[in-house]
């Protein structure tokens, strides 16, 4: 499609595409939005890699290479699009990420190698996120402002207030992104985030992202929640909000783009709710088998791209194959890496302190 064929209301997209260094020759239209082909392919490739990573990790939970699995098959579009928009770096000039446990795609899109994920699954000493201490997907990367994921549902929303305060002071365009599920919004912390982020004259750039998969473990959302959209809860606080079909990567990209643009420019909060699928149940505790009846965003996007002539079936096949190989290689690599030792148990409890007579360095057991 030559540039002149672009409908006028998509012109800004063209400009953006040029800025991305993409020749704006092809676009995908979906959900009333449009996105250029190269970006779509990039997203697709990352989504496929994410899916391969998740599937290989699930396999590890069954083979004994690891124990517990939890992750985000079905949430690839939101995660990958988000990851590609992150202003990546350390400190308040960059975005902070307050995540939960379904964000592998986000990290892959930011550039995390698969092996970093696999090490946590395999509980190796080399696991950069937790030294084999935490469940898989509980990331912590200081260089990218990925603050440690904790299993406690929803506390990330309260921490995001603090990082966003510092970002606002620094007059950067950094945003604090907090991600959580739908059921978790019943915790008071979700409400705390709205109240604090919208204090009059003290608004802070928190992007509250709710991935609504319709369940909290076994409990259907519609049995516990009367809100038509969770994102409607933002309105009384004057917080702008939107909701999007997370199974539509194009629409998701655009919705996230608007959310980030708003937060970066206005230095105010924004809430986005994305409807997503949960393709393997809650976690390995419920078997982690593939469930039926849920739309599969990777398949949907693949069909869309093939249908619009951007992707060839063979290329898709190759991308999937490469991703699976990459995941296998990463799993294989970590299998032989060192495990933590008994002497590691107390490590990293305390940072060294000049004013501690007992623990000037790290923790060493009860005072003696």
């Amino acid at each position, binding site marked *: 499609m030559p540039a002149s064929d672009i409908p006028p209301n998509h012109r800004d997209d063209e400009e953006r595409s040029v800025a991305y260094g993409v020749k704006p020759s092809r676009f995908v239209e979906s959900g009333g939005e449009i996105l250029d082909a190269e970006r779509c392919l990039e997203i697709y490739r990352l989504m496929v890699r994410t899916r391969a990573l998740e599937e290989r990790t699930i396999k590890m939970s069954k083979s004994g290479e690891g124990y517990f699995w939890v992750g985000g098959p079905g949430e690839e579009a939101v995660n990958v699009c988000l990851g590609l928009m992150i202003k990546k770096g350390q400190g308040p000039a960059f975005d902070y990420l307050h995540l939960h446990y379904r964000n592998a795609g986000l990290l892959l899109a930011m550039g995390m190698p698969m092996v970093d994920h696999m090490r946590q699954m395999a509980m190796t000493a080399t696991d950069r996120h937790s030294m084999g*201490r935490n469940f898989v997907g509980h990331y912590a990367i200081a260089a990218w402002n990925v603050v440690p994921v904790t299993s406690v549902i929803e506390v990330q929303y309260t921490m995001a207030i603090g990082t966003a305060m510092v970002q606002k002071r620094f007059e950067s365009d950094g945003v604090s992104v907090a991600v959580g599920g739908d059921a978790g919004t019943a915790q008071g912390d979700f409400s705390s985030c709205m109240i604090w982020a919208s204090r009059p004259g003290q608004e802070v750039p928190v992007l509250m992202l709710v991935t609504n998969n319709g369940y909290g473990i076994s409990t259907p959302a519609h049995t516990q929640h009367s809100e038509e959209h969770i994102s409607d809860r933002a309105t009384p606080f004057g917080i702008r909000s939107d909701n999007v079909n997370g199974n539509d990567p194009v629409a998701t990209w655009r919705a996230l783009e608007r959310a980030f643009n708003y937060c970066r420019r206005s230095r105010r909060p924004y809430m986005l709710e994305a409807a997503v699928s949960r393709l393997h149940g809650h976690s390995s505790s419920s078997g982690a088998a593939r469930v039926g009846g849920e739309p599969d965003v990777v398949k949907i996007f693949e069909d869309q791209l093939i249908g619009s002539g951007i992707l060839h079936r063979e290329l898709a096949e190759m991308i999937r194959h490469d991703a699976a190989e990459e995941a296998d290689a990463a799993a294989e690599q970590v299998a032989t890496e060192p495990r933590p030792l008994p002497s590691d*148990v107390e490590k990293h409890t305390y940072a060294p302190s000049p004013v501690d007579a007992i623990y000037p360095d790290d923790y060493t057991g009860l005072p003696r």
Partner: protein
Amino acid sequence: MATLVQAVRLALHYGETHLGVTDIFGEDVGPPLGGVFTATQGLKTAWNTPLDERGIVGAAMGLALAGAKPVFEIQFCDYAFNMIDMLKVAGNLRWSSAGAYEMPIVMMVPTGAGIRGSIYHSHSYESQATRLAGWKIAMPSDALDAYGLMLSAIVDPNPVMVLLPKALLRVKGDKLIPGEPSDPAELSRRIDAPVGDRSNWQPDWPDVREYFVPFGSGELMREGPTATVLSYGRLLPVCVQVADELRQSHGIECDVIDLRSLFPYDWPMIARSVRKTGRVMIVNEDTEVTNFGEHLLRRIVEEHFYDLLVRPRLVQGKHLPGIGLNPVYESNSVPQPDHIRSALLALATDPA
């Protein structure tokens, strides 16, 4: 024989059919799941809540205030630290109002390590729980006690917390619950929900009967003159096993007391044993600073100091921020059979 979690389920069934339980609720407690550990499968009054522990406790308190009899589950005790203020209110409400209201709520909550639960499915709760004045705290170590303590929790008109040792939930008991079919396979067929679609499943409850383990009554699991071992919950069977081994290997015979009820605890049983043996070891897996075992030690030292022949031992979890997923963490921060064995041997053989 029933597993511990089946015993809890049978107790809840008895509770809702004979003891006036009106509501059994919590996250994923109702259909379809019936609890992440299956404790509430097939119960007629079980229902799901929003993901909100504060709401769960508050709703329970309100139900009780209005004359209902609620039993609620907190999914893991690891998630029972955001509403301790409310547990305190539940414990002080009768006292604060000079007896105007009672607070007959039951909280049940899986606790402790041993299921490869990583940092947030391995916490212990007894040291936290025993600080809650106005509450009664119980912790079974086998199926029959779980049944009897749950029934006591239900009929007691005060707030009662039943700590369920996660790692023992699937362990079968060695005594039948009154009315329990003697074939465990039959029991399972009748009360365990099938895998897959359960929408038409109905349990076929056996006709279990009343059986109470009163609060404040421990159980003497093993008897012997040499030493006293105090424990409960997950590590109790380990203590029993270690005691049996030492009898075999060294001819050392010890009292092993299963506290069962942590508050009130069976002080007469403890005091009797300590007077007899003069050697005491307390075993639990909670972290060791401000640990409930330290309270028991204090009572013993304060009242039986001159009865003690050798220094008492506490075997407890390490003071650490968490229990990591790689097994090296748990085996080096939570008491293992080896630690318990060597501590008991040392206790028994210390020169007096």
